């Protein structure tokens, strides 16, 4: 059936048609929808795991048990899952196992711009890279067979523009894949030194065989045009090359970036006058060409930074830019902001008011870094706020304790914050950790997690008791506040920072965008009472602006959280009775 699908839905469809029986993932833009689409199917098990390492290990277990399995994650998630990945390369698989990883060139929603191909090369695992939705479906499906034929996990590399672009696919039926019975094979599956030493040569042999396969595999292809210019490209860059040149130049499209073919590339290079490599992020194909003794035009013309477009290609080839028109007045920037009624705002306001140093983490609350709150001091990776504050306090002079907190969301805390908290309790730093518990995984679009009490299908599930968890690791001071209540926030922050021992404040209120959250009618400003002090403006609420010198609240945006009401010293803000 002909359908328009985003790349991620097409991956889900490909895995489904390929007979997948198990998927475990942790959400991460731009990979999240792969697992969400599979969760709509009842013929397989789908789940959100606490983090990517758990997800990949669960998928490995399912493969061992004999069902085709997968997990999906964003590029930085593969760092978390790197530990099992590098050794799964040694064990190989039982039933096929596919690791879907989505890179984010240009960092639309990420903290770095790393290139996942390095993980494939370093872990010695084959990688496929589709360039549109039809290929996403086909490659995902084919990845299972490749995984089983070569006894290896296979990485499917996506990027934002393939994951989140819709193009036409033809869907098919689901293959009936019989379970592969589990057999005890200690020398294959127990990776202790004696056995691992026997497996390493197997890995090297497999990669050599895959390199041979790459010469004629269906994932790499040559499209001959004129031979003045030959372009080696892959992924979304292929589309930009075709957009600019159509069928006029010769193109070697790489669909399997690891291992790369040798003869296919040298033969192609020999037939063209000028060789170019056009790839986003790092010069992986280009470096491979140089090892083969070729000297292509590459990163000197096509940047390591950001993502490409047809404009990037046209400009590099000296094609004149298209005529444009623009207004003389520059449009002010519109950065993303915390929503009206976001429960994080009240806590951030309290921290800023008290001039607290705030080690931040990954999630919606990273937006607390933006003006006017400017609440954050650092954001590194998932969990780093909690681990980091311990070192920050022990590494700094005495003066920083009592003035520093870590903030982390509920899902991120479960992902990798709890291990940092154990370290705080075990190695004794007087850290205060604030868990911003909005009862959902917010930034990636509302996924359930182990603290919400519901699983990926929305069915009731085991629920982590955050208070009990924190106490059980050795934190004696654990308290809960409502971030809409500014005086309660203030009291909690001051008291816990004054305490000479570790503490956790759970700032708890569900995300205002959740469907079950009932919002109040908007509040409004009485312009006669407003003294234009702009104290309410310090919240950075998108509903509040100054109009004609007085604060004004946009009734279409305000959800009546009442935080600004508590701030106004003149009683100028009121809600409906």
């Amino acid at each position: 059936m002909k359908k328009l699908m985003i790349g991620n839905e097409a991956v889900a469809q490909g895995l489904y048609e390929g007979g997948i029986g198990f998927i475990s993932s942790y959400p991460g833009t731009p990979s999240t929808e792969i697992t969400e689409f599979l969760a709509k199917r009842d013929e397989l098990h789908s789940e959100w795991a606490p983090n990517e390492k758990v997800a990949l290990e669960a998928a490995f277990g399912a493969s061992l048990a004999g069902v085709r399995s997968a997990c999906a994650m964003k590029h930085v998630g593969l760092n978390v899952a790197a530990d099992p990945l590098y050794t799964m390369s040694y064990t190989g698989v039982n039933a096929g196992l596919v690791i879907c990883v989505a890179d984010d060139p240009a960092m639309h929603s990420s903290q770095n711009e790393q290139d996942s191909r390095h993980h494939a090369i370093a872990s010695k695992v084959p990688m496929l890279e589709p360039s549109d939705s039809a290929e996403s479906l086909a490659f995902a499906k084919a990845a299972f067979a490749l995984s089983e034929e070569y006894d290896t996990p296979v990485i499917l590399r996506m990027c934002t523009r393939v994951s989140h672009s819709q193009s036409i696919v033809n869907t098919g039926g689901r293959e009936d894949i019989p379970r592969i019975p589990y057999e005890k094979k200690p020398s294959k599956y127990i990776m202790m030194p004696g056995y691992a030493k026997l497996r390493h040569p197997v890995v090297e042999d497999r990669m050599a065989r895959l390199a041979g396969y790459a010469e004629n595999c269906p994932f790499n292809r040559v499209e001959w045009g004129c031979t003045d210019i030959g372009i080696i490209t892959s992924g979304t860059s292929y589309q930009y090359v075709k957009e600019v040149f159509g069928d006029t130049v010769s193109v070697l499209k790489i669909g399997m970036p690891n291992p790369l073919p040798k003869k296919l590339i040298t033969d192609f290079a020999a037939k063209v006058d000028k060789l170019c490599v056009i790839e986003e992020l790092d010069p992986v194909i280009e470096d491979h060409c140089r090892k083969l003794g070729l000297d292509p035009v590459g990163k000197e013309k096509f940047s390591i930074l950001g993502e490409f477009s047809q404009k990037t290609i046209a400009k590099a080839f000296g094609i004149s830019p298209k005529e444009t028109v623009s207004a003389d007045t520059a449009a002010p920037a519109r950065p993303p902001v915390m929503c009206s009624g976001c429960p994080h705002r009240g806590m951030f306001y309290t921290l800023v008011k008290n001039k607290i140093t705030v080690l931040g983490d990954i999630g919606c609350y990273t937006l607390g870094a933006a003006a006017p709150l400017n609440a954050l001091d650092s954001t590194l990776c998932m969990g780093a706020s909690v681990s980091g504050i311990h070192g920050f306090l022990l590494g700094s002079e005495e003066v920083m304790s009592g003035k520093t907190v870590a903030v982390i969301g509920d899902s991120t805390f479960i992902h990798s914050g709890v291990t940092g908290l154990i370290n705080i309790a075990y190695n004794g730093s007087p850290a205060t950790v604030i868990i911003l518990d909005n009862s959902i995984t917010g930034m990636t679009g509302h996924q359930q997690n182990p603290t919400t009490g519901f699983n990926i299908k929305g069915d009731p599930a085991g629920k982590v008791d955050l208070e009990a968890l924190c106490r059980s690791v050795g934190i004696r001071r654990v308290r809960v506040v409502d971030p809409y209540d500014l005086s309660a926030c203030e009291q909690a922050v001051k008291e816990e920072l004054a305490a000479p021992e570790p503490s956790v404040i759970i700032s708890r209120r569900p995300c205002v965008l959740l469907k079950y959250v009932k919002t109040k009618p908007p509040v409004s400003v009485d312009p006669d009472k407003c003294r234009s002090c702009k104290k309410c403006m310090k919240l950075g609420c998108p509903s509040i602006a100054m109009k004609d010198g007085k604060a004004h609240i946009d009734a279409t945006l305000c959800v009546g959280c009442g935080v600004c009401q508590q701030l106004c010293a003149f009683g100028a803000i009121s809600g409906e009775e």
Partner: protein
Amino acid sequence: MDTVNIMIVGVGGQGSLLASKLLGRLLVDEGYDVKVSEVHGMSQRGGSVVTYVRFGDRVYSPLIEEGEADFILSFEKLEAARWAPCLKKGGRIIVNTQEIDPMPVITGAAEYPSGILEELKNKGVLIDAVDALSIAREAGSAKAVNIVLLARFAKYFSIPVESWETAIANTVAPKFAELNRKAFELGYNA
């Protein structure tokens, strides 16, 4: 045929993703090759959002660059101006006249530019400005702005109204079908 390029721009949360989904489906049903590109995640939270819709005989790139768009469908006035450089010569902007202050305006670091559509008009840009928010409210919900704008846009195409109506019925939840049908009718005839 040459590929037709449409940009749908607005502020995160305004419902532009539904508009692109609907438009994409309709164009596939009409037999075109179609690509629709959007960005999820961080940028959706009240930030400037853009979706690209391209259709024709064979579409490669999912993106639309400077000087390439035949149409810009803008859910907000300032966003129309922000993305205007993507318009090709002779291109048209269909814009909802609603103003939503971005954070730099709210904090006082910048001003919401006045007369920005007139500036563009004076430079030869075809502008079709419509108070889609009022029309959507008349239809029954401010959230139907996306359908009102699509209806306005539909006037520039030869695709029959019935096909649009079918696409709407197939995309929105059944309980909103009547609301959206009405929003389309009001937008088309506005």
